[in-house]
């Protein structure tokens, strides 16, 4: 049977989260950088911005370009022809952010400014 083979385990537990309408801004340089990254796949692909545990401050930002999942778990924002998806569970954490892009040799790349974060880490990838 093993230690995990008995009775008394709960059903899988999910986090209760508050869902809000996410508002996200992009700077002009960020929009250009995303369009460049999408390389013409804008029709079939979307940008997903999300948050996950970890980092110095508690949460980590993540951005991915993926094929449009086309499901109701995401909020969809159209920004200058770019489809941006935010999962409903991340909406409270990410609403109000501004995505910027810095083209510098050191510390460059996408940067997220979050006025609602109580704290951020030195590298800017983590917030809390």
């Amino acid at each position, binding site marked *: 049977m093993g230690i995990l083979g*008995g009775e*008394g385990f709960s059903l*899988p537990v999910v*986090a209760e989260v508050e869902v809000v309408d996410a508002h996200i801004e992009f700077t002009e340089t960020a929009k250009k950088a995303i369009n460049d990254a999408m390389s013409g796949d804008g029709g079939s692909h979307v940008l997903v911005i999300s948050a*996950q545990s970890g980092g*110095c401050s*508690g949460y*980590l930002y993540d951005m991915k370009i993926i094929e449009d999942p086309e499901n109701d778990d995401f909020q969809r924002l159209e920004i200058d022809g770019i489809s941006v998806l935010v999962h409903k569970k991340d909406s409270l954490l990410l609403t109000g952010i501004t995505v910027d892009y810095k083209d510098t040799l050191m510390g460059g790349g996408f940067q997220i400014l979050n006025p609602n974060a109580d704290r951020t880490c030195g590298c800017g990838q983590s917030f809390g």
Partner: protein
Amino acid sequence: MYVRSSPLTVLDGADSLNNLERCLTSVISDMTHLERRESLLCNSNGRVLDKLLLAAIEGQMIIVSYDGSNDQTRQILLNGVAWNEEVTVTYADDAISHLTIVGQNIGRVLVGLGIEFEELNKSNWTEFGNALLTATSSEVVEAIIPKGELGHFIEALDINGCSRIHEDAWQPLRMSLGILEINDIYGNLPSEVGLDEYVVLSKGCYPGQEIHARLDSRGTASKKLVVLRSVGNFECGKKASDDIGTIRITSCCDTGTDSLAFALVPIRAIELEMISIDGMQATLEPINHP
């Protein structure tokens, strides 16, 4: 033996180990079947929120939490799962029990159950039927066991000379062995409470990492957890010492012959042998963790 009130959680899923590791102060994603590790969950200020005892079971992870008072650890685990991660969190409080067996003759007790103490170690869990046992030291064994089998296990230990104790007897026993509990460590830096070994600075980012790294490179802890003994009675909380200023007593008990306390004292005080607290004389000594 003492049956702990530890919350038990099971993590499963392809991304469960990576998800858990992001939150902890040490590496756990490379754990193999039946491997045992301990790690810390800290806040962004580097303060300990929980200490976790981990058991890897064929891709799943049993998490034994030290913090029985609230559900903060579980909420952190749940809230941190990314939208595209396959992680299942299951509560096991009604399925598994955690107990601690302590004593100078643990080997004699366990051999009566058919367990060779020499086969137990700190790095792995050893299967005994459906139970898992691990030795923290020569005097401390941790066991996790299906709740349905707990009664028989306790009975078997009792027959072999290991009696069950309850909270009032556990406190002086665990304090005499240097076993910390959540009230001793919560809200403190790992280095203040002797938990440095669970912080791996080369691991990369985790909540509190910046604070721990800064402390490691630029400074030392300003406080340390020590043992106080006195013929008087201690009380938990902040106390004034004429010799060293404010201290904080995190645990205290009456041993029958004297009073024992764990206290956070200014680092400069750890060289002293005796201090005065609220007019009471107390000896001061380091904690010998098991």
